[in-house]
């Protein structure tokens, strides 16, 4: 008989406590135990990226982590990122550039794009392509996705450039 484990995790800013079997994948824990079905599951082998979440602020595949491992950690899912408004603009740009069709890949795409822009505030075109290759889309052909992330990156750079002098004078 497998031993059960009690875990305490901060999910989208709220503390949750559950008892889990060690083999419970974080992706299934989020979807089935917490009802957070925005995290999608495609391959369960790390390849498709649909299940990507933020673990302690860094993008990770929730299908390759056991729920028992995140005891004491912070998990942010697409629901948390959406509700807080953190990815609102990326979502609008995905819509504007037709970066989704069926939408299955979209939660993972948004998390990957968000993480990419956190790590590389002004990525080159090649860095965007390389970075977004961390998730697969079977519908769009990627062109709209790349355009959406490119526009988000460009606007960020513009916003930072404008903000800099203000920030410097206020120091």
């Amino acid at each position, binding site marked *: 008989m497998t031993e059960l484990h009690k875990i305490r995790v901060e999910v989208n800013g709220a503390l949750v406590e559950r008892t889990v079997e060690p083999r419970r994948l974080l992706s299934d824990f989020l979807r089935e135990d917490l009802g957070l079905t925005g995290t999608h599951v495609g391959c369960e082998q790390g390849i498709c990226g649909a299940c990507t979440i933020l673990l302690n602020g860094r993008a990770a*595949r929730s299908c390759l982590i056991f729920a028992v491992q995140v005891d004491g950690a912070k998990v942010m899912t697409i629901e948390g990122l959406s509700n807080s408004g953190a990815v609102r603009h990326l979502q609008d740009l995905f819509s504007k550039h037709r970066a989704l069709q069926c939408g299955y890949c979209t939660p993972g795409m948004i998390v990957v794009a968000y993480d990419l822009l956190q*790590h590389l505030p002004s990525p080159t075109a090649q860095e965007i392509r390389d970075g977004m290759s*961390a998730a697969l889309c079977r519908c769009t052909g990627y062109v709209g996705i790349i355009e959406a992330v490119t526009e988000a990156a460009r606007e960020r750079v513009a916003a930072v450039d404008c903000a800099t002098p203000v920030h410097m004078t206020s120091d």
Partner: protein
Amino acid sequence: MKPAPFNYRAPDKLTEALDLLATYGSDAKVLAGGQSLVPAMNFRLNRFALLIDINRIRELEYIRIDGQVLRIGALTRHRDIEMSPLVREHAPLVAEAVRHVAHLPIRTRGTIGGSLSHADPAAESPAIVLALDGTLVLQSRTGARSVRATEFFQGMFSTALQPNELLVEIQLPVAQPGQRFAFEEVSRRRGDFAIVGVGAMVNLQHGRISQARFAACGVGTGPVRLRAAEQLLEQQVPTAALFARAAAAAAAAVDPQTDIHADAEYRRRLLAGLVERVGMRAAGLSEGAKRD
């Protein structure tokens, strides 16, 4: 599918993990970044009584210089190696190659120790550690032993690790003046496993190659040292013609596998092209057509 049931321990001390390994032996499995193990578990390719999660053992996560040796703790993430100024300065070949390991969300979890222990013949890190003639420190409850990379890798997904041992540290000689490095690979997309990859160190002294170290992934059952190329290059004046001969010698000496990704002949051709390219670049004869 989902993994078969198992019990779980996450010790935060190395000694506790070694005690568990001593008790359970091959009934236990070590979990590092999980980026290779968990996919296999999800497909029920393996089954065991106890999963020993080493992610809480912080003493295994470090990068430091100790005299002429760069020491990397087994639990160090690919991403942290990629971002480390110490690695960039003292092991530039590692810094260049690690950027080719998987995608960012995988690199932030996956560890160098897991990559070496897993010994995937297509993985970059085993080939790099072999090219640099690195040493691996394996520890069990009864003590530690050092194993050279040449003896550590023993074929398809197989290493010198015993069931009661943990890989704890990777030791690499620090780069010396005159040594130049290059890594390149061919893969379908950035972040995919290499079809073939080659890492090289060329030591140039007074216009001659005093020492050459070449190793490849994707052309055998494990990482492969390209000794035929090395022997041809050493003591010679580097020229394009010399690297072309070394490339042909390397390709003739390997025995690649045919699989769904590429057949043996194609891998041999890739190897020849890559040996020439990294050799030329390391020797300063080309700016190197860096793929990107």
